[in-house]
């Protein structure tokens, strides 16, 4: 409950919109840009951004946006970006993260990653099935003569639902040409301390989601590790036409 007052700041819709805008840019954002993007007055925007910074949800830096320096170069702009601190509220109190670290350690010590990846894949398939592909996807495993190519319309709908699902799970999906990059790692410190376990699990799970949703013909979840983002990218194979 300790973190409640930090998280509760996001209840205000204007403040939440500003926070989400700053976070989505993945870089420093100035007050004026944020105000314009959200459609809010500048002084009110500054008030909200500073409240978020004071609460540790955003971090502040100062930089001259013009690139000039020295006397007469102008005042440095105040810039905001997502803070690295984590805040969470669970009612009643829960410590799934703490348990996850111990479980990951056990997987690593016992060398049982294969079992974990299999379980993660199945969990992903279940989640993917719930994305409601619709009638285009036959429930059988093997394609029949009448259903050898899924109808593109429901596929597009399923793809949108996939993006929504990824967003809800905290991956922060962002379209980039024929790919969907995942800008946030939802497993935070778990992926820092147990990267092979967490990232292998993540890939297996996302591959399962695509399969469960009937999207694995047109899309692929691939390991694409880079600093500061999720290790998986979803590649769209059919858009190459």
């Amino acid at each position, binding site marked *: 409950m300790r973190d409640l007052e930090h998280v509760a700041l996001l209840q205000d819709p204007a403040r939440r919109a500003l926070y989400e805008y700053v976070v989505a840019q993945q870089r420093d954002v100035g007050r004026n840009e944020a105000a314009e993007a959200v459609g809010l007055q500048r002084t009110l925007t500054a008030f909200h951004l500073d409240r978020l910074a004071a609460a540790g949800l955003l971090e502040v830096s100062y930089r001259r946006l013009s690139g000039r320096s020295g006397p007469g170069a102008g005042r440095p702009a105040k810039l905001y970006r997502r803070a690295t601190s984590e805040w969470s509220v669970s009612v009643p109190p829960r410590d799934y993260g703490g348990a996850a670290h111990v479980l990951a350690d056990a997987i690593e010590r016992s*060398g049982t990653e*294969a079992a974990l990846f299999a379980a993660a894949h199945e969990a992903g398939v279940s989640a993917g099935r719930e994305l409601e592909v619709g009638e285009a996807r036959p429930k059988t495993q093997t394609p029949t003569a009448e259903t050898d190519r899924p109808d593109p319309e429901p596929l597009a709908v399923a793809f949108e639902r996939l993006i929504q699902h990824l967003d809800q799970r905290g991956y922060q999906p962002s379209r980039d040409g024929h790919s969907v990059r995942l800008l946030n790692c939802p497993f935070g410190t778990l992926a820092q301390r147990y990267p*092979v376990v967490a*990232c*292998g699990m993540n890939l297996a799970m996302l591959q399962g989601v695509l399969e469960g949703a009937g999207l694995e013909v047109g899309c692929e979840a691939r*390991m694409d*590790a*880079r600093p500061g983002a999720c290790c998986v990218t979803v590649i769209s194979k059919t858009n190459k036409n």
Partner: protein
Amino acid sequence: MADVTPAYHLAVFNIGRPVAPLDSPQLRPFMDGLDAINALAEQSPGFVWRYTAEGTNNATAARPIDGEIIVNFGVWQSRQHLWDFVYRSQHLDFLRRRRDWFQHLDEPYLVLWWVPAGHIPSMDEALARLECLRQDGPTSEAFTFREPFDPPVAESVAPLVRAMNETA
């Protein structure tokens, strides 16, 4: 920030016991991917050096422990540089599949330690550091990614650090 040349670099040594001979079909994807991964290491920020067995482009011919265990051995500018290469590059996908190629080992199989910048450690030194980790657990002499230690304070800076600590 001023460009500070680090006084110490980070050495890494890790071992693996293949599940089958290196020329077997099962190890093929690992062996085929080695050149690309080694090239990636060399291009990655912070790379300093990697061990290669004489006359070859990789370390797989070396057998410093027994007839089967192969090794990987290198030096990087910092823990963060090495970590980014190992876990936040194409190398991660290699690691993800390690169970296909290497047996699970119960004892520590990867050790990190600080070396003076410019010093290329010997294989004997690497083996000793791994043994140190296995005997004593993580210490400033031999540690892991999860239990890291800071580099020793450079001798030229030590008097300044002492003075700062005394006035604090």
